[in-house]
């Protein structure tokens, strides 16, 4: 839960550490809002798919991607409120159990983009507990660098599906806006992943 302020990671450095020496087989779906800026500043790549709207859809999108690309590794990088809005997606991940999917939830217990109002996980919602109850077999609570390193290993090698609850402070690092046009971003993603001919389908 996110109501204590000690023993928490700074979000951007945690995400950068998680994505350091990034494997080319890693695909990321990030949901709004700060998770996108964190991923973008870790290194721009067409293999990051950002949802700048459609709040609550990021885990489901990552699930669809992971099941379509079983040879790749897939992260859903989401804030606690993005995850909360589509919470039932955890139940479907628990049903389908894609081995190559890890949900990384950056939990600051805040609605960060809208003024820092306290969110459900900031009071009593235990998102790792929900993921456990949903049947996701690998669960990690991460609040230090060693935990980040272990989560990176799980992302790449399993066992999945996995859920990492990264406990972060409420700091809001600067916005790093990616390509905002979703049609262009998806086309870039598909071209990089599937090859140019996929755009002719």
């Amino acid at each position, binding site marked *: 839960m996110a109501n204590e302020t000690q023993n928490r990671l700074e979000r951007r450095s945690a995400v950068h550490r998680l994505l350091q020496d990034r494997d080319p087989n890693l695909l990321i779906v990030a949901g709004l809002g700060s998770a996108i800026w964190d991923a973008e500043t870790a290194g721009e790549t067409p293999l990051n798919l950002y949802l700048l709207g*459609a709040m609550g859809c*990021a885990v489901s999108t990552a699930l669809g*991607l992971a*099941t*379509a*690309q079983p040879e790749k590794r897939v992260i859903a990088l989401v804030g606690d409120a993005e995850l909360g809005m589509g919470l*039932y997606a955890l139940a*479907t991940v628990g049903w389908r159990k894609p081995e190559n999917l890890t949900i990384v939830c950056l939990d600051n217990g805040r609605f960060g983009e809208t003024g820092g109002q306290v969110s459900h996980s900031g009071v009593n919602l235990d998102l790792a507990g929900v993921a456990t109850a949903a049947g996701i077999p690998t669960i990690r609570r991460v609040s230090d660098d060693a935990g980040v390193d272990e989560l990176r290993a799980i992302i790449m090698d399993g066992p999945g599906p996995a859920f990492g609850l990264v406990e972060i402070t409420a700091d809001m690092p600067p916005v790093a806006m990616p390509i905002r046009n979703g049609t262009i971003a*998806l086309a870039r993603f598909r071209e990089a*992943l599937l090859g140019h001919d996929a755009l002719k389908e």
Partner: protein
Amino acid sequence: MVEATNADWKDQLYNSIKALNITQVVYVPDAGHAKLIDRCLADTEIDCFPLVNEFESVGICVGAWAGGRRSCALMQSSGVGNLVNALGLVHSVGAPFFAIATMRGEWGEFNGWQTPMGQSIPKILDAANIVVNRAETSADVIPVTEASGRLAFNSYLPVFSLISQRATGAKVF
């Protein structure tokens, strides 16, 4: 049943799914889709699983498309409203989205609780700029659904095939 003159479409829909090269089917079950769901679950080439809420279907289908796969979402009209907010994803990324929804709350409906969504779904989808093709009778179901799928995947559009309650047969308790 108030009317379901020819329910062969319930078997034939599976062939339509295969003909459209769809390899992932997600569903919130409805009795009208029961045969199709069973056949998809039995097909090892189709990744078929249930959803808690129709909202999930949009992200899953867009994610699958991002990964090079064609998907279809099955649902009942009573749940279509649950995914309206998520449909913004489809418009924003230019991905196809193909759904087959069986209608309730219209043709001789027994349960009045079904009518608020049943009566408003066509208007809601129209307002959300979703293409709606409606199969009014049993004979329409296969051609309308196949045309809807082709439109979705070939033109990168969100398309619903609505199967009317006249075709599914109104449930009588």
